[in-house]
Structure formats: structure tokens, C-alpha cells
């Protein structure tokens, strides 16, 4: 990852969503992006130049654009029409983004479009986030890594976020994953945890 005086940046053409520039690099704001927050907390997994990424919950494509700056290719899956319009605008300028308009919980629909990926990144607001992750693990290479941004409040508003995390970890280990690291994204994001896991 590229740091300039403690500021996380990515190399690429600016002006995607009004992000600030620093020495010709795009500043990646941890308060806006959960992935940037994860790196600010001292990460365990870095993006590599030749990585192919499957990005679930691409939304407006702000974080996607930074991931695309670092990696070879990003398959960005988003379901809602309004954010998809913004994502298309971002993808039009970055040739290594493949925008897929589909429901991440139904991978059988977009499976014919995909290739094996090095990183499965997931930031979806769905109560069944863990189920979606395990259904999409089929796209991971054997050496692949999954990075989940767990929105504990989307999974269950009533439970304590800590309990939701513990339960999610247990469910992940039951399916196809081995947990490597978990951390809360405070102070950047409330009630969000990052879970890094490898394929079994």
C-alpha cells in the first residue's frame, strides 16, 4: 500500500468522486471507505498489482476505484439501479473494472462471467452476509483470501455487535473459511468489523 506521511493514497487519475489529491495521488479517506479504515488500523493483507478481485456490494464505486488503482482487475457486483449508474460512470474511465449488475446472493446468475479471483471483498448490507460469502467462495483461487466488512447492525439490530461478530465467525468456520484476523473499524466506522479469512 502507498502511504505519504501517514496518509493512505492510491495512484490513478483523480476526480472520481471529488477526492482530494496529494502529490498527484488520490487520498483514500478511512472515514468514507471501510477498506481504507482497515488499512489505517494496521492491516494483514495488502492488495497486489496482479490481483483479480471480486467486489460484492460495489455501491457508487468510490472504494472500487481505489481498489482498481492497486490491482489488475475488479469484478464489481452491485444490485441497486441508482448506485449502479454512478458505478458505470466510474467503470467507463477505469478499464480494469467490470461492472456487473446482479444480486450477490444469487451467484449462479453471474457465474458464467467470472474468472478465478485472488481476493473476495464484501461490503453488503444484508442479514445473510455470511451465507452470501460462502456461496461466493467458489470463485476464490485455492490460495485466495476473503475480506468481509461485517455490518453488525444490518445482520441484527437487536443483538450486541460483539455477539453478532462471534456468531458470524463461527458460521464462517463451519463453511469454507479459516479465520486469520478480525478487527473493529473504530473510530472510523461504528459497529463494523473486518474479517480476514482464507479458503479451507
Amino acid at each position, binding site marked *: 500500500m502507498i502511504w505519504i506521511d501517514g496518509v493512505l493514497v492510491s495512484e490513478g487519475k483523480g476526480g472520481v468522486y471529488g477526492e482530494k489529491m496529494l502529490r498527484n495521488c488520490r487520498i483514500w479517506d478511512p472515514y468514507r471507505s471501510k477498506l481504507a479504515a482497515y488499512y489505517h488500523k494496521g492491516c494483514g493483507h495488502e492488495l497486489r498489482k496482479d490481483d483479480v478481485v471480486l467486489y460484492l456490494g460495489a455501491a457508487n464505486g468510490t472504494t472500487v476505484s481505489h481498489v482498481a488503482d492497486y490491482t489488475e482487475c475488479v469484478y464489481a457486483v452491485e444490485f441497486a439501479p441508482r448506485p449502479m*449508474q454512478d458505478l458505470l460512470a466510474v467503470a467507463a474511465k477505469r478499464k480494469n473494472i467490470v461492472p456487473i449488475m446482479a444480486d450477490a446472493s444469487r451467484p449462479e446468475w453471474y*457465474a458464467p462471467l467470472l474468472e478465478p479471483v485472488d481476493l473476495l471483498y464484501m461490503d453488503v448490507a444484508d442479514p445473510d452476509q455470511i451465507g452470501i460469502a460462502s456461496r461466493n467462495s467458489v470463485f476464490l483461487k485455492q490460495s485466495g483470501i476473503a475480506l468481509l466488512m461485517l455490518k453488525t447492525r444490518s445482520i441484527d*439490530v437487536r443483538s450486541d455487535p460483539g455477539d453478532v461478530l462471534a456468531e458470524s465467525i463461527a458460521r464462517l468456520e463451519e463453511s469454507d473459511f479459516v479465520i486469520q484476523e478480525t478487527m473493529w473499524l473504530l473510530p472510523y466506522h461504528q459497529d463494523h468489523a473486518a474479517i480476514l479469512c482464507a479458503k479451507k
Partner: protein
Amino acid sequence: MQSYWFGDIDGEGCHPFVGSPADQAARLESIDTDMAAYIPVAWEDAVRCGFAKDRGDYLQKLRNLCFFIAEAKIAEHFTSRDIELVQMVRMLDELDDVINLLTERAVEWYRTKNPSFSRKYRSLSGRRVIQVMKKERDRAFAEIIADIEKLQESRTRLMRDVTALADTVIPNCSALIGGLVAARLVSRAGSLEELSRLPGSSIQVLGAQSALFSHMRTGSPSPKHGIIFQHRRVHNADRDVRGRVARVLAAKLGIAARIDYFRQEIDQDFLNASQEAVDRAGEGT
């Protein structure tokens, strides 16, 4: 045999599919992938297949297809009429907020010009207040009041349009609780499709989210009604049967939304039975 976006691969080799993005998209829809047997394809296979020249060419062709699919889906989404209805209702509610805000501020200003006004205006309706303030001679002030009046006219016109559109897009829901409230329900749910998938119990408390969540977090009493409170048979009902009326009405609305979404026509028998059920719920025990 495995089917991918660029062709089929089986024991004998690879059969590329040649066609425009539209043809490719249609073929993609027909592919029924069995996830248990699925293997993601390597892009090199598409090159070996003769479909693409290299990595760059592969990605470019894939992107063309994905852009085509996404743009088609977005167009389809935005041309459905309930989405326009949602935008109209949201504009209407926004107009209400703006008109109230401007009127309140204008009254505060007007009071400094006419200190005796404060007592009078308590008993006046919003519209009457505007009529009174219109007589003020200050040019800037009078112009703002004229603008507020214009906004009120736009609001009235928009409300008529919303009701008319609701009558055609969601006829059954509109017949049950009136076009405006029905349109608000669709707006809260996001779209007619989403409303039609909600159970009656969710429809009953649509628009009462904060009360619902405080109920779930702290165990305070559950909300009896959200948006449907705006319907006269709910807010005019006696307090002790209001919850029951809201529940029955919401259940019928759930069915009405499904008829509106899947059949798009009015169902008079259903409506008569429903109206009767709601009325019966409103009679005391």
C-alpha cells in the same frame, strides 16, 4: 459441458459464441449454471477458444457485455411507472416541508413589522396567514410571499397528479386507502415490487421505523400504525379498536399490492370483501 459468457467448453473443446452484446446477454439469461459443478473459467481459455486475442481484448469484450446488461436493466427500472410515482410523492412531501419552513420564517419576519400580529395568527390557518401577509408593502417580503403561494399551487397540482397516477398504477391499494396514502406506502417500501413482497405486519408499521426499533431495542410498546394512520378509517377509529383496524387494513393492503403488482387490474370482489372486513374491525366489540 460448462457454459460461459463467451461460449461453451466440453470434452471435445471449445465452441465460441459469436454475436452482438444483445445476443450475448440473451444467451446469458438462458444459461442455467449448476453451482455444485461450476468451475470459474480462466481467461486463457477464451483466447485458446479463438474468442479473444489477449487479456486486454478479453476484458474489453466482457466489459462491453456487462455495460450493455447494466444499462438495459437500469433503463427498465426507471421506466416502470411506480418509480415515477415514488419520485412524485417524495417531491410532494419535500414541498410540504419547504412551504412550512418558509411560512414559519415569514411569520417571524412579519411579526417584527407588525408586533400585534402574533396573537392573531395563532387562530389562523397556514393559508389564511399567507393571505394576511400578502398585504405587506415591503417589496422583497411580498415577493417571497408570492413565491410561497406559487409553491402551494404547485403542491396542489402535484397532489392531484399523484392521486391520478396512483389510481392507474396501484388501483387496488388506492381504492382501499386513497391514492395519496397508497403512493406514500410505495415510496416508503421503495417500489411496488418491494411493497408487494412485504407481509401485512410490516406494511402496518411502515413509516413508524423509529418507534419499531425502540420497541425492539428496549421493549417499549410496539407501534400500532405508521403511514396507514393517515387513512381516515384508522385515525377516526376509537382508540381501543384502532390497532385492530390498522392490522386488518394492512393485511388487505398486502394482498392489494400483490394484485397491483402481478395482475395490474382492479379486483372488485376482493375490494368489496376487504372494505367490509375493515369496517367490521372498526365496529366495537
